[in-house]
Every structure is written in structure tokens, then in C-alpha cells.
């Protein structure tokens, strides 16, 4: 390595670190704040060094049942992802391999549903949920999250499926495979990284979804977003408690992201180089 190359490499490494630090700083600050006392958390000149305390975590755990919220989040985000995949795989398959004149338009139309603010359909959905007894149930929230994520899931799968050589599927068809077999035995195994990263993204989106989970659930089906919402307050100090609650709320998804980051990156760059 020549000195110039070395310098360039060092520079890029430093730049990479700087960007990473900048991006993760809010997260880091939140975790740090969760170990502060309420008074230290609100201090005008923030302390970088302080006596760490688990007080906020204790209060948070005492005031609400974290495990119940976490379990609801897990069920809803995984369930909604699987439900979305169940519908998205056949539709993306159809659009990728048997496109018509209107496929492009259909895809755009689907995406356009994401452009409408959720609050616009709040009352109709609320009434439907009330009449079908789905208010404050995980099933209800799971369905809404699945439907909400469906356009993105279909779009992503569509782009991944487009990368699969048509000839492979045609060869399968020559050997007598029907559409179901074609999807199941050929398409899914070939685009597995794409499906995994799509699922991860859908899970994260459902995990973070706050609007519907706050309005459609009360006590029984409330996920972690509702858990966080109970720790900010217009009266009294709450920064440390809120940070502790947020840290607890993102921990599971952070671990999931960490464990699967290889697949995630592989999936996201799948077909990027052509």
C-alpha cells in the first residue's frame, strides 16, 4: 500500500466513523440519559460523566408491565409481516412475470395509498373495528399493520423477483410445474435474501407503527409504542424515565437487526450490481 493509498484509506475510515457516530448519537444519548437521574437528565449543561443509576428502569418496570407490551409488539409485528407476505408474494409474482399494460399503474396506485395521511381513514376504520369487535385486539392491529405495509412489501418483492432469470421459471414450467410449485420450489429459494430483508423491514415498520397502535388498542393489545407514550408528561420531570422506556422498547428490535444485519445488507444490495 502506497502512502497516498494509506492516507486515503485512513481518511475514509475516519469519515465513516464520523458519519456512523453522527447517525447513532441520538440513540447513544437516549441510552446514556436512561441511566441518569431525572435532575441530571434535564440539566442545561449536559453531563458526559455522571453516576449511573437504574432508578428510571425500576420506576418504569414498576409502573407498567413491560413484558405484556413487548409480547404484543412481537406478535403483532411478526404476524403482520407474515400476513403481508402471504398476499404480497403471489401479487409480486404475477406482476413481475406476467406484466400487463396496467402493471406499472397498479404498482404506483398501490404506493399512492401510502400517501394518504392515516388520520383520514381513522373514523371509518374505527367504526369497522368497533362493529367487528376488533378494537383492542392483536388480531385487529395485526391486520391493519399488514395492510398498511402491503404496498411496500409488494414493491420490494417485485424488484427482487425481477432479478430472478425468467428462464429458470420457464424451465420449471417445461417440466410441468404449475404456478404454486413455481413460486414455492423455484422463486422463493432463489430470492430468499430478498424475502428475508423485506420481512425484516416490514417487521421494523410494524414494530415502530404508532398511530394505529395508539388509537386502536387500549389495555389488552397495546404494543410498546403505547408503553413509551405513557412516560412523557406535561407535569413533572420525565426525560430519564422516557429514555429508559424507549431503550427497553427498541432493545428487542435492535437485537433482531444486529443478528440479521448480514442478511439485511445482502438483501438490500441484492441485484444492485448487474
Amino acid at each position, binding site marked *: 500500500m502506497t502512502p497516498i493509498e494509506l492516507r486515503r484509506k485512513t481518511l475514509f475510515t475516519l469519515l465513516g466513523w464520523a458519519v456512523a457516530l453522527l447517525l447513532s448519537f441520538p440513540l447513544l444519548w437516549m441510552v446514556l440519559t436512561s441511566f441518569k437521574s431525572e435532575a441530571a437528565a434535564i440539566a442545561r449543561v449536559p453531563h458526559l460523566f455522571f453516576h449511573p443509576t437504574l432508578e428510571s428502569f425500576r420506576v418504569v418496570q414498576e409502573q407498567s408491565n413491560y413484558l405484556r407490551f413487548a409480547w404484543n409488539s412481537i*406478535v403483532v409485528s*411478526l404476524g403482520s409481516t*407474515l400476513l403481508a407476505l402471504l398476499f404480497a408474494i403471489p401479487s409480486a409474482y404475477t406482476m413481475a412475470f406476467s406484466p400487463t399494460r396496467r402493471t406499472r399503474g397498479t404498482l404506483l396506485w398501490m404506493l399512492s395509498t401510502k400517501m394518504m395521511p392515516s388520520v383520514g381513514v381513522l373514523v371509518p376504520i374505527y367504526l369497522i373495528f368497533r362493529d367487528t369487535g376488533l378494537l*383492542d385486539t392483536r388480531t385487529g392491529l*395485526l391486520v391493519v399493520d399488514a395492510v398498511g405495509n402491503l404496498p411496500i412489501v409488494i414493491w420490494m418483492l417485485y424488484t427482487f423477483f425481477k432479478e430472478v432469470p425468467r428462464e429458470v421459471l420457464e424451465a420449471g414450467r417445461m417440466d410441468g410445474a404449475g404456478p404454486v410449485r413455481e413460486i414455492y420450489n423455484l422463486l422463493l429459494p432463489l430470492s430468499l435474501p430478498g424475502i428475508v430483508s423485506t420481512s425484516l423491514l416490514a417487521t421494523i415498520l410494524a414494530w415502530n407503527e404508532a398511530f394505529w397502535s395508539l388509537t386502536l388498542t387500549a389495555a389488552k393489545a397495546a404494543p410498546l409504542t403505547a408503553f413509551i407514550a*405513557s412516560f412523557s*408528561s406535561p407535569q413533572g420531570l420525565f426525560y430519564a424515565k422516557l429514555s429508559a422506556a424507549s431503550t427497553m422498547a427498541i432493545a428487542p428490535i435492535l437485537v433482531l437487526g444486529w443478528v440479521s444485519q448480514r442478511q439485511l445488507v445482502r438483501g438490500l444490495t441484492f441485484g444492485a450490481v448487474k
Partner: protein
Amino acid sequence: MGRLKQRATGWLRFGLITLSMCLFLGKVTESQTPVTLTVATVNNGDMTIMQRLSKVFEQQHPGIRLDWVVLEENILREKTTTDAATHGGQYDVVTIGPLEAPVWGQRGWLLPLDSRLSPAYELNDLLKPIRDGASFDGKLYALPFYAESSLTYYRKDLFARAGLVMPAQPTYSDIARFARLLNDPAQNMYGLCLRGKPGWGENMAFISTMVNTFGGRWYDEDWRPQLTSKPWHTAASLYVDLLRRYGPPGSSSNGFNESLTLFENGRCALWIDATVAAGSLFDSKESNVAGSVGFAPAPIGTTPRGTQWLWFWGLAIPAASKHADAAATFIEWATSKQYIDLVAKTSGLASVPPGTRRSTYEQPKYLAAAPFAALTYQAIMAADPLHPTQEPVPYTGVQIVVMPSFPTIGNQVGQLLAAALVGDLTVDEALGQAQAATERVDRRMGVGSNK
């Protein structure tokens, strides 16, 4: 290919099993014990105590279980409003304030409570202004859990050092003089702290009382907005002037919490805000100035009418509740004298929910434990939500106008006055735009047309 196929089959199987499990679990949890009440409440200190003590209630009433939904105020308001308006029936007990109780009661979203209470509840023990604020057309729609008004807080040590004496009833010219004399930015000491953060429950709560006491009102008898009238101009100019000259830097981002922190850290000589702050200011664990806090009634301008605000949190039963009787039993317990005694016993006298019952203020022990109690009581009793202003008005509410569109209007006007505070607008411009904004919202919402 064989391995890939195997893997895909495995994934698909795993997926289908997990999905059916999720749907199943989603369904299973809907089964419940005979009576489980879902209680929606705000996450402040008094409510946290209630949640903790509710175990006692569950022991006393083995047939009733409580499920808690504890949320930040604004989120709670959105959720409970949606549910009450659509008769969703998600909640059996909701926590609401003086803005919701009469409006929701009028619309039939809440159950009237008078006939559901047992005689032992002693309805007449509730303070009249609070009871009025929770009623519509003579019917009570919420049982007050705790209530607050406003006070002037000041630093006794600074007053003594400067040879100043706080009068028994300060006026705004007194406040301006004290703030000028005690303002010392070089020492990080500011003459006066006030709410500056925009919002109908933040800066507008204070400014509305200031307008009231200078003889102003939000609407005249014909529902015409009065924001460009002389009292509004006087009040808004004085507010902006006081905070610009003697307020801490960045006043426009200070709400209740920020001001409380400033005062507790010894940065403010004077502060006019909620009575509920007193408990914290006197607590030496939280406050650096606990030993030197003085308090006086909220200052007056040209009339004492409407200078103290009035706020309460009350418990109500939505009309769609499936367990109204059990819910009534619970809210009766949570707002009863027995509950207040229970809090006194378990958390100390100074922690009892204030401002709702006369009997609380008749306990010499309570008055001794909470030095601010007598003044809080006077402030609450002086507030009159039915006749809040000097001139007659078609609405009720002291620092609020009890109508559904008030939060929208209050927030917009609050933002314009915050803009005047930071100097982006003059007071006249801000009030002119506020008047126009109010008229616009009123037209859209039909304010005045059906009154």
C-alpha cells in the same frame, strides 16, 4: 436446488405456523373475567398513586378487575375523544378535564352521574366551582379527582434582601415593579418567569387569565371574537414587555415544566403558575429554594374576576361502557373521602389529591402539612367558570372557552403570541392575525350559529 427447496419449504412452514399462532393468540386474549374495567388516565403523580392504590379497591371488590391505560395527556385526549365520539366502548372509565366534561355530556357521550352515586359519597362536599365545571345543564358528568388554580410564587429571601414586601393581593403593576428591581441577568437571576411555550394549555392558560383580569373576554354575547379589543391589547403588551425585559432567555420555549425547573434552581424571583407546583417547590428533595418560597394570590389587573384559572382532572364513564355500574363503583371510590384518607395514610398528607373536597381543607393536619393549602382553596373558590369575566359572555370556563374548537383556536392564538414574544410580530399584528384566525375557525366550525 434440493437444499434450496428444502430451505424454502422449511421457511414457508415456519411462517404459516407462526402466522396461525399469532392469529390464534390474538383471538384468545379477548376472553376475560366477568368484569374487567379499562381505565384510561393521564400519567401524572396523583394518577400514579391512584393506580398503585387501586389494588386496595380490587381487594374490596373481588368481582372487579382494573386494566390501566396510562398515557401522556395529548395522546390520551385523542384516544378517548375518538372512542367517546364513535361510542367505541374501549374504555369504561376516562380521565377528562373541564373542556371535555360539559361538551361531551351535552352530546350524550358520557353517562350522567348524579343518580348513580350512593348517599355516602357526599356530593355537596365537592367544591362548587369544580362541580360546576364538571356539569352541563345541572347534570354532573365527571367526578373531580384533583383540581388546581393559579398562584404567584416569589422568593422571600430576595424580597427581604431588597426590602420589598409582597402585598396580600398583588396587582400587575406590583409584579412589574418587583420584577424590575429583582432582575439581575448578570447573576443568572431573572425577575419573572411565565409560560411562553405556545399551546392552549400552556401560554394561553396564563394569558387568558391576564386578559380576564384586565376586563377582557374571548367572545362577546353574540359570539364575536374580541381579540383586538383594548383589554387584549393591554394584557398581551404587558405580557410581552414583562417577559422580554425581565424573563429568562428563551422564554418562548418555557412551559410549566421548564419554568418549574428554573424556579427550583433559583433562576426566577417571581413566577405565576399552577397551584400544583407548590408541592414540588416546597419539597427540599426536588427544589433548591424550598426554604424561601413565598406565595400570594394571582395578581390582578383592573378586576379580580377571572385572574385565577381553574383546571381539574375528573373521572367519567363513556356512554358506550359495557360495565357502567362497576365503573361507577370505581370512580366513586377513587374520588371519595375514604380514598383521600387512604392516600394520606400511605403517601403522606401533602400528597393527597387537592382541590376537590371541602372536607380536605377542614383538616387542621392537612393545612399544617401543606402551607399552600389555604391559599389554593381560596384561589379555587374565587374562580367562577360560569361567570369568568367582568363583562357577560356566552361561554363558560375561566382560562378556556368550553367548546370543541377551543384547542384549535387556543393553539393558533398561542403561536401568534409566542411570535410576538420573540419579536417576529408586533403585538398588534399578532392580535390582528389571531382575531382573523379565530373568525376563520369559528366560521368553519359554526361557532355561535347554533348557540
